[in-house]
Structures are given as C-alpha cells and as structure tokens.
C-alpha cells in the first residue's frame, strides 16, 4: 500500500500544476445569461408573408411544382399524403421546399424517456426522413428529467434545436418568446388559420397559439376518455355498455357499488382521479370546475376558481374521491391501479390501453372506452392536454427551417403515430380514416371527446396554479376542510405565489 514518496509527489505536483493551468485558462465567469439574438424569432415568423411576394415569381415554377411536390412527398409512410390537402396549398408547399437550406444541416432533438416513442423516432421517422432529405441529419437524444435539463440548457446557450414540451409548460415558453413559430408554408397554407382549418380538428390547437402564431405540433393530444374494466363491472352486476357513468354523480354512485373492502382494507375502487403529481390533481379539479361552468383564471392572472362553480366542482371532486392514498400509481406509472384491477374505471388518453396491457397482460380485451363523464350532459366539456414538438427560437434560421420541416414530416403522419404508440394526434384525417379505426376501434370516443374539448387554462403561471390547486384539494379530501374555505385560501396562495 505504500507508493513511493517520489511517485506520490509527482502525481500531486502534476495535478496541482494541471489544475492551475486549467484554472488560468478560464476567463472570469460570464454573467449568467447572455442576451440571445432577439431578431431571429421575428425573422422566422415571416415565412407566411415572404411566401406571398414569392408566389407571383414562383407562378411559372408553380406548374412545375405539383410534380415536384408529389415527388418530394414522403413515400414511405403508409397513409401520409401531404398533397391530399388542398391543392391550392401546393405552391405554398413548393415555396417552402424551395427555400429549404441546400447544404448539410444537423438538428439536435431532445425528447423524453418513453420507450415506444423513442423507438418510433429512431426506427421510423428519422430513418424515413433521412431518405427524404439526405442532406439533413437529425441527432436525437433520450433525456431523463427533460424539462429541467432543457431549462438549464436554454439558460446557458447549450439548448437543443428541437424538443418536446407539454401544453402547460409551453404557455410559459410562449410568454417568454423562447420558441420558433410553426411556418404555415410547410403545411401548404398561406397562413396559420388556413393551415389549421385544412389539417387539424377545430379549436384544439388554440392552447398552442399566441398572437396568431402556432408554436407547437402535438405528438399526443388527449381530452381523456373513460376506460372501464369489463370484468369488474360484470362482477358487480353491471353492464359495461349500458351502465357506464354519464355524469360525475353517476361515478360517485358507482363508487359505492364498486368499492369493496376486506375488513378495513380497501381492495377495490370504482374510480379515482390521479393524485401522483400536482398537475394531475390540478387538471382533475379544473375539469370539474370548468364542467360546472366556472372559470379558473382571468387573463391568466386573476383567480376565479373560488366562485360558486368552483366550489361545486370541488365538492364533487371530494365526493368522487374514494381514498387517494390507497394507490400504487406514481408520477411515472399513472395506469398502475387500473392495470392491476384495483380501480374499475380510469380517465386517460387513448394510449393508456397500450401501457395498461404492458403492465398487466391479463388486461388485454378486458376494457372498453366510453366518453368522459360530465357535470351537465347538456353542456359537455372536456379539457385538452397535449405533448408537443417545439423548435428553439434562438437557433439559426437554417436550423429552424429544417427542424420545422422534420416536425411537419412527422405531424402529417397521424396513423403512424397511432400504430406505433397509440397516441392520438388531432388531425382531421383520423376522423374518417379506416386504417385508424382498424388500429384503434374506439377512436370515435376519443375524437368526440376532443371535439367538445376546451383549451386548458391559459397562464404562464401553470406551475403555481397546479401547486395551489393540489394543496386545496388535499385540504378538502384529507383534512375535510370546507371547499369554499379551501378555495379561498388557494386564491390567497396563488396571488402570493405570482406576486414576485
């Protein structure tokens, strides 16, 4: 164990010297965030206008464009036909393609750890895109704790060119002008409104828009429907096709029938909202409040959730709760209780089926989908959540274009998404596509729930809102506080939290 003194000394000396050199080579640390180039986002939002002056000039080229556009259309995806959208948009699309960078471009793409989407990206989308555009390279990375890492990367100018964000966080990013707007020309439209009316289901994309610009393309959009465990219903003497709950009061009633105990131990529940993360609790409560006709925030700042409708929503939230602490769900495994047949019903987006069967293969064929319960069936309402592909607003225009091109390429293939991951992308074509129906027989339920969906609460303070509403719900359900009192306290907490 005794190194010779000489060797120890030399190691020590060298490391000291090396450190000194390394330290000397570093200039004094810079201020935390360098002002990024503010001009870029403005330039990037011009493609729509730039397309118009180019259109007359491109008119002679337009006749040549449709064949070029058809040839350039992705030929590998089973059902994607960008050219099927309004032929008049063909020249927009052609302009877009003409303006793409010619030389090699590399785009860095960070996304989360979900294995099925990861597989889809690497094996299908990126591979196919490479065939379409050989000059461009998409460098993708799986990043755990994506949100945190993206924030640090943006603060230090090491951010990826494109990444994924959920609809709540996107509000803050949009408010801070951190993202690059989606170019309508890439979708073959003259402006965003045209693009949306041509391709997407109506209204659903509003949460991703600000000042008339669209900032994200969903790779998953859910209005949550209701999953029902067939076996558990039948055991309780219920017919899953007829006796499914239409209102939340029905859910509360069914809970009484479906909840079973052995002694003091709860062995089965009818339904439980997700309580594993603040945003889950918050979105459950917000759903009920909105369905009761109330609003959550005014202008994204003023709390309105302690209104009469808010109190009503909270009361039902409490009545529907069986025992949130008896649960095995966690933030990264939201289907656990349903998959393990502890809960007879579950609300989630269409891909929940895939994961349920993954956790518990015995669930295959044992569940059906029904529309989300309502507070007032005459005024049905669901709330949208979405995960989106976004482009960093501070990168070079070249990279922005390629990133948008790639995202458009992926966005135009809803059936590929559906088949590969069970995720619903809200494109109109899915409504009538027979392939989609084959892949997901209950897709009508999901789409209908999307059609009656309202945008989730618009605010740049989504984090604070979720934390405050979660605390309010915990007070009511665990500590039996009066709903009005709890919501009033939540209003104070929210005001305080956004003050600074």
């Amino acid at each position: 164990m005794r190194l010779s003194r000489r060797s120890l000394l030399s190691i020590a000396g060298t490391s000291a010297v090396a450190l000194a050199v390394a330290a000397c080579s570093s200039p004094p640390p810079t201020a935390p965030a360098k002002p990024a180039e503010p001009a870029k986002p403005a330039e990037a939002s011009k493609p729509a206008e730039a397309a118009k002056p180019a259109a007359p000039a491109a008119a002679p080229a337009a006749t040549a464009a449709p064949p070029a556009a058809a040839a350039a259309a992705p030929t590998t995806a089973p059902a994607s036909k960008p050219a099927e959208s309004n032929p008049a948009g063909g020249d927009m699309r052609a302009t877009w393609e003409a303006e793409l960078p010619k030389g090699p471009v590399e785009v860095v793409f960070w996304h989360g750890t979900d294995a099925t989407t990861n597989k889809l990206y690497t094996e299908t989308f990126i591979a196919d895109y490479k065939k379409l555009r050989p000059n461009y390279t998409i460098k993708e990375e799986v990043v755990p704790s994506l949100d945190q890492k993206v924030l640090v990367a943006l603060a230090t100018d090491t951010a990826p060119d494109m990444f994924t964000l959920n609809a709540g966080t996107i509000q803050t990013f949009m408010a801070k002008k951190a993202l690059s707007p989606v170019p309508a020309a890439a979708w073959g439209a003259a402006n965003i409104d045209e693009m949306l009316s041509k391709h997407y289901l109506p209204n659903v994309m509003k949460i991703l828009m600000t000042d008339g610009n669209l900032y994200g393309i969903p790779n998953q959009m859910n209005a949550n429907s209701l999953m029902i465990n067939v076996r558990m219903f039948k055991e309780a003497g219920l017919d899953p096709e007829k006796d499914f709950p239409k209102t939340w009061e029905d859910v509360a009633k069914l809970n009484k029938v479906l909840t079973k105990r052995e002694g003091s131990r709860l062995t089965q529940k009818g339904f439980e909202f997700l309580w594993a993360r603040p945003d889950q609790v918050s979105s459950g409560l917000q759903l009920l409040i909105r369905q009761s006709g109330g609003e959550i925030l005014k202008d994204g700042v003023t709390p309105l959730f302690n209104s009469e409708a808010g109190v009503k929503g909270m009361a039902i939230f409490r009545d529907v709760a069986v025992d949130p602490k008896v649960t095995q769900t966690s933030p990264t495994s939201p289907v656990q209780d349903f998959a393990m047949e502890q809960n007879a019903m579950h609300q989630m987006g269409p891909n929940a089926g895939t994961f349920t069967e993954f956790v518990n293969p015995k669930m295959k064929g044992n569940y059906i989908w029904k529309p989300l319960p309502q507070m007032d069936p005459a005024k049905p309402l669901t709330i949208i959540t979405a995960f989106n592909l976004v482009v960093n607003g501070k990168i070079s225009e070249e990279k922005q274009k390629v990133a948008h091109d790639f995202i458009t390429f992926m966005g135009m293939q809803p059936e590929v998404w559906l088949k590969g991951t069970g995720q619903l992308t809200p494109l109109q074509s899915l409504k009538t596509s027979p392939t989609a129906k084959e892949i997901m027989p209950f897709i009508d339920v999901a789409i209908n729930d999307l059609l009656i969906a309202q945008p989730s609460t618009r605010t740049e303070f989504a984090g604070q809102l979720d934390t405050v509403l979660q605390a309010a719900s915990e007070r009511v359900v665990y500590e039996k506080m009066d709903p009005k009192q709890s919501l009033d306290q939540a209003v104070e907490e929210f005001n305080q939290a956004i003050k600074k």
Partner: protein
Amino acid sequence: MSSVIVRPDAAPELPPRARPLPRVLFRPVARHHLWGYVFLAPMLLLLLTFKLVPMVQAFRLSLTSYDLLTPPRFVGFDNYIGLMSDTRFIKSVGVTLYYTFGTCVPIWFISLGLALIFNMALPGRNYLRLAYFLPTIVPIVVFGMIWKFLFHPYGLLNVGIESVGLPPVDWLTSSAAVIPGFILSSEWRFAPYFMVVYLAGLQNIPQELKEAASIDGANARQRFWYIVLPLLRPTILLVVVVSVIMASKAFTNVLVISGGGPNGASTVIGLYIYQQAFQFFKMGVASAASMLLLLGIMLLTLFQMWIFRDAQPE
C-alpha cells in the same frame, strides 16, 4: 531530544544531521507555516472555481428576477422581501427545522452507539456491519420507490405497526405523520453513514490508552466518558456539522416520495427552492431562498463550532 515513539512498525528513518542549522534558518515556527498555503492551494483552487465563484453568481442572481428563458432583470432585494412575507416559504423553514433536528439529533446518538458496538470484536462483525451499511448505498432512485411502498396504507410499515396492536398511520396523507415518516427513512439511510464516520474517528483513539485505563481500574463507562469521548470530540463535531448541513439541503427524497404534501406539510426548503427554480420559473427567488438557507446553516455551524471550541487545533 525526540520523544519516545512506540509503534509496531518502524519509524521513518531520517538521516542524521551533518551539521547544525544556520542561525538564520532557525525560525521554523514562522517559516514552515507558510506551507499551509501550499497544501491548501490545490483544493482551494478547485473549490474556488467550482463552488465559491458559482456561489457568488448565485448571490448576484438572487438580486434579479430570472426565469432562465430571458436574461436576468435586476430587482435589488425584492426577492428577499417577498420571501419574508411568503407563507409557503416560512412554512418550509419550520418544516426544515423539524425535519433537520428530528433526523440529526437521533443520528448523533444512534450512529455513535452503533460505532462503539462495532468497534468491539464481535463474531461476524464484518458481515453485520455490511448489513447495516447497505441502506446507505441504495441508489436514490430506488430509495424513493422502496419507501413509497413502505409508506403505503397497507404497506410493510403499517403491517408491522398493526401487528403490535397499534392503529395504522397515514404516512403520506396526514400532516402529522409525514415528517416523522421521512425522519424514519432518513435514519435508515444515514445512521450507518455516520456510524462509519464515527468508526473512523474511533480508530484514532489508541488502544493502549484504554487498556492502561482498565488496568488502573476504570470500568467501561469511565473509559468511555473520560478517554474515548474527549478524544472523539473532533469527530463528533464533524458528524454534528455535516449531518445538519445534509439534512437542511435534503429534497430529492421528499420530491420523489411525497411531492411536498400533504398541503405543504413536507415541503422542506430544498423542495421550495427546486419548485421556484424549475416549476415556477423564478430562479431569482430560488437563489434568494438559498442564500437565506446558507445563512441559517452557517449560523448553526458556527454555533456548533463554538460549543466544540476546545476540540480545535491551535
């Protein structure tokens, strides 16, 4: 002139001096102390570059409003003033104090007890010590999953409690039980950690001193109180200071296991800071809260060092 050194292995052989030291060099008391700087320099350089400089930056950030997406905006001491009137922050200070001292005080004694026991020769000692040590090396990812499962209403903890006839505890949903639950999990994880620190400290106490004392008639308690404990003071100071620092900063366990609930009852300052920085996009406020945390821990540490002041070197 050299003191008598009795050691099992040979003392280092130093060459006999060829001639007496010149008079001018005979100020070794002052001169050699400069070597302190030399020995300190490498680590100091590392800490300066990667810890102290960022800390200064963090302080500067605390004077700004910074959302990580746009450049920081100077706001003076507004963040600090805001914190003083933020009920969630004040509540988190209370929760942190509760958790910190609830975890640390028992650890000081439990770890010492375990170390003393394991310092004795026991059959199978190495295996037993390993068994006690394993909780410390469980990866944090899994630590959270394990304890979430233990805290389940029908989980192992409640099963154990009910088997002795007590009513089950709402570990994660009762404001009264959540911090004690965390304390329990932290004791499990860190008592062995500090046991090893104490063990290392105990090795500094010469066996011969203890044996001489027992030959002189001292019993175990006297040996402990008059020989072991005083010589252990530097290590005790280390354990006290480090345990308080670690517990005050803790947040990953809370984030994973309870998310800070119910109703903020387990939101320690570390979690409050994380939320402000990465969920509320308020890095300025997070930095200000961190500075206040630093101040609090520093005061506590200085106080602890003052109590142990006779365990300091000259």
